[in-house]
């Protein structure tokens, strides 16, 4: 089983290292042809506008959309989440290309810029009961996006409560 990691920009090295710790082979993917050799894909964190531009230059979007349509497993971290969302709020002027496939609305940079970045312990009771492991997962939110709403078939694994006076909730 070979897991592809989209290596256009961002923390792809960190994801490959995490796979290695699990004893799984991770392979960097930069061109459409490389997708045929992997059984699943990770889209790492980074700058989503940068990744979208690079994907455009190399005509990766059609291949990525096919990959998702074929129902192969895809994991999106942060910028990866933005790529996989069906709807994105807070795009750069002129818009940015997405892959889509996850029935949700995502807001880019929901919490603000770097000074609003933070760490939090997220309770993950469902994961803990199904797979064992600790009751909480340490989340590091760097200029993080937020899922504003998710469709009925989306399984929510963890939530981070946002104070009701958050100005973006007024949108």
């Amino acid at each position, binding site marked *: 089983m070979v897991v592809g990691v989209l290596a256009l920009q*961002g*923390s792809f090295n960190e994801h490959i*290292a995490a796979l290695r710790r699990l004893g799984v082979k991770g392979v960097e993917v930069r061109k459409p042809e490389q997708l045929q050799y992997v059984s699943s894909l990770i889209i790492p*964190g*980074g700058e989503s506008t940068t990744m979208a531009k690079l994907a455009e230059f190399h005509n990766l979007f059609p291949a990525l959309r096919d990959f998702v349509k074929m129902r192969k497993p895809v994991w999106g971290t942060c910028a990866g989440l933005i790529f996989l969302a069906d709807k994105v709020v807070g795009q750069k*002027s*002129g818009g940015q290309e997405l892959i889509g496939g996850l029935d949700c609305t995502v807001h880019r940079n929901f919490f603000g810029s770097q*000074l609003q*970045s933070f760490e939090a312990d997220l309770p993950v009771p469902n994961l803990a009961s199904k797979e064992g492991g600790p009751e909480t997962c340490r989340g590091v939110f760097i*200029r993080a996006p937020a899922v504003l709403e998710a469709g009925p078939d989306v399984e929510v694994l963890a939530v981070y409560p946002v104070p009701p006076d958050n100005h973006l909730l007024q949108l």
Partner: protein
Amino acid sequence: MAGTGVVAVYGNGSALTEAKKSTFSVKVGLAQMLRGGVIMDVVTPEQARIAEEAGACAVMALERVPADIRAQGGVARMSDPQLIKEIKQSVTIPVMAKARIGHFVEAQILEALGIDYVDESEVLTLADEENHINKHNFRIPFVCGCRNLGEALRRIREGAAMIRTKGEAGTGNIIEAVRHVRSVMGDIRVLRNMDDDEVFTFAKKIAAPYDLVMQTKQLGRLPVVQFAAGGVATPADAALMMQLGCDGVFVGSGVFKSGDPVKRARAIVQAVTHYSDPQVLADVSCGLGEAMVGLNLTDDKVERFASRSE
């Protein structure tokens, strides 16, 4: 380069603890997300939008690019906050800005503007000849320049969450950036093979904190993300720095001082992603127009920004 290439989260070793400070892992986290990307100098909101469209992963907002600072001389200070605000409003990608070395109030002002990173930069005139800013006192993360491993680790001990080579900014000449990255990588290679008992003396020799030297030895790389900077003018330059082991590239005067900034910016972004694919590098290097005019460093009259601080 061997090793996982992972940037480990550095422990909270700071002796100063204030509730308002962000954890070091949050500071380092943004640099991790910038890896494999290009950060471009911009002096107007229009240039910032061009950079974002070309695929820059962040912009450095300033009034004058290093080539102009060099040409015009005088004292170079932090830019007008109004300009920085306008640039921040014009893009959705992270925004950085420069503060003078040791000028902690310029850094306080930049933090108050809510930008994402401060570059404590030798390109600006020094404000303090002896001391750098105590970056632990800030919630905003800092990037600092270095010429060698000792300098890099001293800056990290002061609280820098990201490191770049100093190179020789504004010259369009890659020679110094190459010198600096080879020095850092070379010392790391020596360190990796060194007997643990010899590390004490090595730390003394490079004037760096022992604990950070040991951490570097164990990781096989710097404990923070390291970008190339200072003299990158072409896609080949950018790919060279990536192949030498850098995690990403800053391009200052190189983009907007060239003949066709839009094309060149895009080409450099692609070069950093496909840095080990000569076919792509050849393709993107074609028809780029004029590169920025450069300065030859054998000329004594060229001021060396990199040696202003240690």
